[in-house]
Structures are given as C-alpha cells and as structure tokens.
C-alpha cells in the first residue's frame, strides 16, 4: 500500500474515533433532557447486548448484522475505528506513554505469548455468553461501552473503572482490549476468517512492530494475529521497509492448517472453560443475597421464574426474570429520570440485582406522563410501551397505614395523597365522611383509602405525605 494512502487511512481512523466518541457523549448529554430522548446507539446496536434480548426488529438486527459482515470483510476494525472505550484507552495510552516507557514493571508481552494468542478475553466471552441463558448476565460487568456510560454518569463505579484504565496505561497499551474485552474477543473470533487481512511481506527483522499496541505483529514468524489486529494503520512510520500489506488473503495452504487446528482447539477450550466459569458464577449469584429471586436456573429447565424481590422496578417492568436478564446495568435510566427517583441497587437484593435500577419515592413519584426511562433503555429491559399502556401497568401498590395517617389518628383534614394522585378517576377515594366542627366552622372529614384496582403504584402520594412518619407507602407484591 502506498504511503500516502496509509497516512490517509490513519487520519480517517482518528477522525472516525473522534466522531464516534463525540456521538457517544452527545447522546448521553441529550438523554438527560426529558424532552429530547435519544437512545445510545453503541448499546443498542451491539451483538453481545442484542443476545441478552434478541427480538426480530429489522432496524435493530440490520445494523448488528452489518457490523458482523463488516468484521468478516475487514477484520476487527470496531475496536480501532468505533469503540469509544478503545478511543479513550488509546488517549490514555498516549498521555501515559512516558511513565510507561520508564516503568520497569511495564508488560512487554510478545505476540508469541500464550496470553496474547489465547487471551483471557476468550474465557470472559465464554462466561458472558453462557450467563446470557441464566438469570445473572455477566454482560453488564464486561461490556466496554456500558462502562463509558457509568463514567459519564460520574458514578463511583465509573470513576473506579476509569482509574483502572488510566493505571493500566502505565503498564501497557490497550491492556483491556488485548486481554479482557469480550466484545473485542467476539470480533476477534470473527476476524479469524475475515476476507481482508494485514500480512507481513517484507521484513528486516528490526523488531519495530513489537510496538504494536495490540501485540498482533510477530516479526519472528512473519505473522499477524488476525484476532488481535484492529486495522489501525499506525505502522506506516514504524516499518522501515514498508513491508506490511493489507488486502485479500491468499487461501491457506496445507502447511498452515495444523497450527490453526491446534489453535482452534485451545481457543475452544478457553471458551468452554469460560462457559463453565460463567455457569458457576451465575448459579452462585442466583443463590446469594436474601432478596435474590429463585431463578438462576436455565430458562428451559424450569417453568416460570417468580421473583421474590420487593424492589419497585421502573415503569413497565412486569417480568422480573426477563428484566434481570436484559438489564445491562448501564444506569442510563438512573441518569435520565427527570424526577430523580431511579436508584442503582447495591448488594442488598443479592448479586442478581446488583446495579439494577429500582425506584425510591421519598422525594418524588413516577410521573404519570413520563416515559423517559423506557425510551433511553438501550435494551428494552424497561419495555417501551405506549403511554396508555404505561399508565395502566402497575409498578407497585400504595397502602395507607391507618396508625400513621393523621386523618385516622388525629382527625386532621388531610387529603394531600388524594390531591396528587394522577389517576384520572383517582385511586385514592374516601372510605367514609364525618361532619366535624372547629373554630372556623363546620367541615367534612374524609378518610382516604386506596382502590387496589386503580392504583398503579406511581408513588406520588408517598412523596408528598405530610405525616411525621410517612403513612402511605408503595411496595411491590404488597
């Protein structure tokens, strides 16, 4: 390839990375405005996330299929050209290039290293794929772009991850991409059979390509590891003899068959091992924690899995098991909820519910006409409903504690819960009325009560209850 073309491609790649990173940040910022909701395309059009909630939607399947076809043609281009986390890591790598070069503990793995040829990412990928079929998906913890949302959300978790990324730059380049990323591993597996590949044609054995951030080029065997090569075109300055060629690969002869077969076996073993680890982790997660659902089993092995959780989920979530499988814990809904009532769950409901969203009605209720969480959810873990459906789907049920409600305890006229109830025909009605007198004259005391059939558990009443100890609370499975 001509040098000028190489430079052009390299610049194009930088532009592409900048554009996609900007798109990511832009969609995130837009998602904070309740009246201009845009979905995050990086989480929506993603093969791994798609597997957690496969649905026959052409506009969803087509872009993902497109990504896979492009990978089968060009190789693992996603990581070098699109992936926002990849771009972020590259940025961090260049910032920390000096400390890395002077760091005696820096990792100088070579393409011949076992960890590069058969990266742990394959194990992660295996574990992630198996966990898709259990209640405890591992996708949320290993998906690169979910982490970016968490970083942009300025969550503690996100900053911890960012810290790890920055730290890893001191020890080596693209460490996440080479060793851990399951999405990269997936594209890597696909690019084993890609049509276009990078090959070494001439070599002066200068070892310059040891600088490859993905450690994909091995001058000793004149081999490029296709599952690690991210088509970065950064080699133009590096190679003194301009010995690289990117193009259609010749049909593999008999000589290269044996090693690839052996590699296939090792790779398969890695995936299988990961699968087993995934299965074990998933079952461990399912039985841990007091509020963990009795799921954790494979969906085809048992009947309907009934959740034992009492957490109020975002509106529209009815099937708890499906929700747990689909939720990628990206916390987009937590960030976008205009009422700020969606919170990330900690370990209190078990590992299965870790980082899933739940509702708190201390300060606000779920607005009757708001669907922001449903719209931003990239995976429809919070199902996208029509507004009319949403207004009929219960989140929970409000219950009045007559020992706390001031109407029952002190005969004070208070109907704040009834006032704010957004159900048109009001889910809070009057159990009975009583004629009373006080200094300013007669008045009618009305005792509030909840109509179970009407209440959708939006929590507006709980948020405004003026009693010292809140007398009306919403809970699930009440």
């Amino acid at each position, binding site marked *: 390839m001509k040098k000028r073309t190489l430079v052009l491609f390299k610049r194009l790649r930088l532009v592409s990375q900048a554009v996609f990173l900007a798109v990511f940040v832009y969609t995130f910022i837009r998602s904070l405005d*309740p009246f201009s909701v845009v979905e995050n395309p990086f989480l929506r059009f993603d093969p791994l996330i798609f597997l957690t909630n496969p649905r026959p939607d052409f506009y969803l399947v087509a872009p993902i299929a497109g990504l896979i076809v492009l990978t089968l043609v060009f190789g693992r281009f996603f990581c070098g050209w699109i992936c926002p986390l990849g771009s972020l890591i590259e940025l961090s790598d260049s910032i920390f290039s000096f400390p890395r070069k002077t760091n005696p503990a820096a990792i100088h793995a070579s393409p011949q290293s076992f960890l590069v040829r058969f990266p742990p990412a394959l194990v992660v990928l295996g574990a992630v794929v198996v966990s898709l079929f259990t209640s405890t998906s591992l996708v949320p913890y290993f998906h690169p772009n979910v982490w970016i949302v968490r970083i942009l959300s300025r969550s503690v978790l996100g900053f911890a991850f960012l810290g790890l990324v920055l730290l890893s730059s001191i020890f080596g380049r693209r460490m996440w991409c080479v060793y851990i990323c399951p999405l990269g591993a997936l594209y890597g597996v696909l690019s084993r059979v890609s049509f276009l590949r990078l090959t070494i044609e001439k070599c002066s054995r200068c070892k310059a390509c040891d600088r490859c951030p993905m450690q994909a080029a091995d001058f000793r065997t004149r081999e490029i590891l296709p599952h690690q090569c991210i088509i970065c075109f950064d080699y133009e300055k590096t190679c003194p003899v301009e010995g690289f060629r990117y193009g259609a690969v010749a049909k593999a002869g008999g000589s290269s068959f044996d090693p690839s077969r052996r590699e296939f076996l090792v790779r398969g073993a890695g995936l299988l091992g990961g699968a087993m680890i995934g299965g074990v982790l998933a079952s461990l997660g399912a039985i841990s924690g007091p509020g963990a659902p009795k799921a954790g089993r494979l969906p085809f092995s048992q009947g309907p899995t009934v959740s034992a959780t009492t957490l109020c989920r975002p509106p529209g979530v009815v099937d708890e098991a499906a929700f747990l499988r689909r939720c990628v814990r990206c916390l987009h809904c937590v960030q976008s909820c205009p009422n700020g009532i969606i919170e990330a769950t900690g370990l209190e409901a078990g590992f299965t519910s870790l980082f899933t969203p739940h509702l708190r009605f201390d300060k606000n209720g779920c607005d009757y006409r708001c669907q922001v969480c449903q719209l931003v959810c990239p995976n429809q873990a919070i199902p996208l409903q029509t507004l009319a459906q949403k207004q009929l789907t219960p989140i929970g049920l409000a219950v009045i504690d007559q020992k706390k409600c001031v109407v029952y305890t002190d005969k004070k006229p208070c109907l*704040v819960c009834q*006032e704010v109830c957004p159900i048109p025909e009001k889910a809070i009605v009057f159990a009975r009325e009583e004629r009373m007198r006080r200094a*300013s*004259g007669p008045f009618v005391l009305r005792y509030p009560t909840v109509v179970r059939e009407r209440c959708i558990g939006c929590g507006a009443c709980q948020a*405004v209850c003026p009693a010292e100890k809140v007398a009306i609370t919403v809970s699930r499975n009440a």
Partner: protein
Amino acid sequence: MGADREFGIELRAGTHYHHAMTRREFLKAAIASSFYLAARRVFPASLVTRPDVGIAGGADYQKAVTKAIDLLGGITAFVRPGDTVVVKPNIGWNVPPELKATTDPIVVRTIVHLCFQAMASKVYVFDRSVANSRLTYVTSGIQKAAEEAGAKVFHVDEITDAMYKRISIPDARYLKESLINRYVLESDVFINVPIAKSHALAGLTLSMKNLMGVTGDQRGKWHWQIDDALADINRAVKSKLVLIDASSVMLRNGPTGGSMSYLKRLDTFIAASNVVSADVEAARLFGRSAEDLPYIMEGAKDGVGKASGYSVQRSSA
C-alpha cells in the same frame, strides 16, 4: 393606556358626528370634555369608578382576557411604566393544556404582552410546581408562551436564601411565618393567574389557593388547616391583579384531572382587583357560594377582599 384609549375614543366620537353638530352641541361637548380632562389631571384615577370584578367571555382567549382587564380600567391601572411584574400562573401538574389542570398558555402570554404594553421593565413567570417543574413548564406550554412574549421564566424549586425570604405574618391564624419568594416580595406588581378547578380538600382551587406556589415552605402540612393558611398567605402577599382562567373548568377529580369528560367549557375570564371577590365570582360558575368555601370567608374576615357588596361589570361579547 386605558386613559389614553378613552381619550382617543372621545375624540373619534366627536369627529364622527362633526357634520351633524350644531354650535350649541359643539360648545357643550367642548366644555364637558375640557372639564373632564381637567378633572382627570387633578384626580387621575379616583374620579373614575372602577368595578372590583370584570367578567368577559369569548372563544378568543386573548381578546377575552384583554377585555376582562379593560373592564377594571385596563392593565395601566395596575402596571406602571418601569414596573417589575410577577405573573403567577398555575403550572402545578405535568398535564397537557387541553386537560385544563394548568393555566392556559394563551392566557399567560396575553397577560405578559399586556404588561409589556404598559411598559413593564421585567415580567417574571414561575410556579413552584407540585410535579417536576422541568416537566410541567414544558408540558403545560406556559414556558414557551411566556418566553415568546418576552417574560423571564425560571424554576423556583430549590429552597435557597437567594430565592426565598422568611417573613413573619402578624396576627396570623396559622402561618406565623412563611418563606416567600423574593421575586414576589420585591417586584412592584403581583398578578395572580390561576385556573379554576375542583379540589377535594379545599372545595375549589382558585386565586387564593394559587398562592401555594409562592411559598418555599413544606406545603403538605398547610392542608391540615388550609382555610387559615390560605387566609394568612393572602394577607401577606397581595395580588394586585387577579385573572381567573375559567375557559374550561374542571368539575371533579381535580386538581390533577386527566380527562376531557371532567371539563365544562365556559370561555369565561374573571379579572379582579382582589382575590376574595374573584374567588366568589369564580365559585358561582361552579354553582357554589362563598359560604361553601371556608377559606374565602376567612379571607374576607381578615380583610383580604370583599366577599359580598363588590361591584361587577360584565362584557357580553
């Protein structure tokens, strides 16, 4: 502007009949008008008796609102050049305008327009919504309408010292002291623009109850003594001009509503110079008397306004 308009009408009436005018008529008219103009200069407003309440109707909200205020002497009777004005609509709920849980945006826009025609220096529009104001301001259409008319619209949900000031209310029945919005306290004119709706606890929510939106207090507990609380807050914050939006009134399941079937179309607007008289007139549209609504009577007792014996002027068109 009201006075100028009357002046203009006098002149135009004169020119219109010019060809038919005899000398005697001319002299009469000239003397009468010179007396009138002289009197206006000496006793600018006191000579002209204004009604306490003006009621106008019509499907064109902009015209009807302007007409209702004109019956009280026009906006210039309330807003003077250079004044800062707070327009306080009901933006309490995240409900689209056609369901009439919030003041109609056209009404708000019209009033902001009128204020600027009277050469107000600044017009502020806000409400401390019950629902999330980031949603209510947009859904109600009020933010857009008011900003298009040139008003400054902002959120007052954060209870800060910069936004609210604690005042004490002497001889209060319930609210000995209250946090009141500084813009309300420090502006020259406070215009109260509620929408008339049903309300289970208070009976109806009209202009007196609209003042729930100028406080920074925990409003929940007010409801335990709502009649006293409303009388107190209305004594502390005077509404110089009231305009009740009764274009379509919510007859039941207020104040949130949520169905067109709860609404009754009246195409009516009530302007008033005090909240009590305004609320009494608005209550009559629901077929209720002031005696049904204790907070109105308490307000009248406290001298906030007249619950009876006030003057009303209606415009048929």
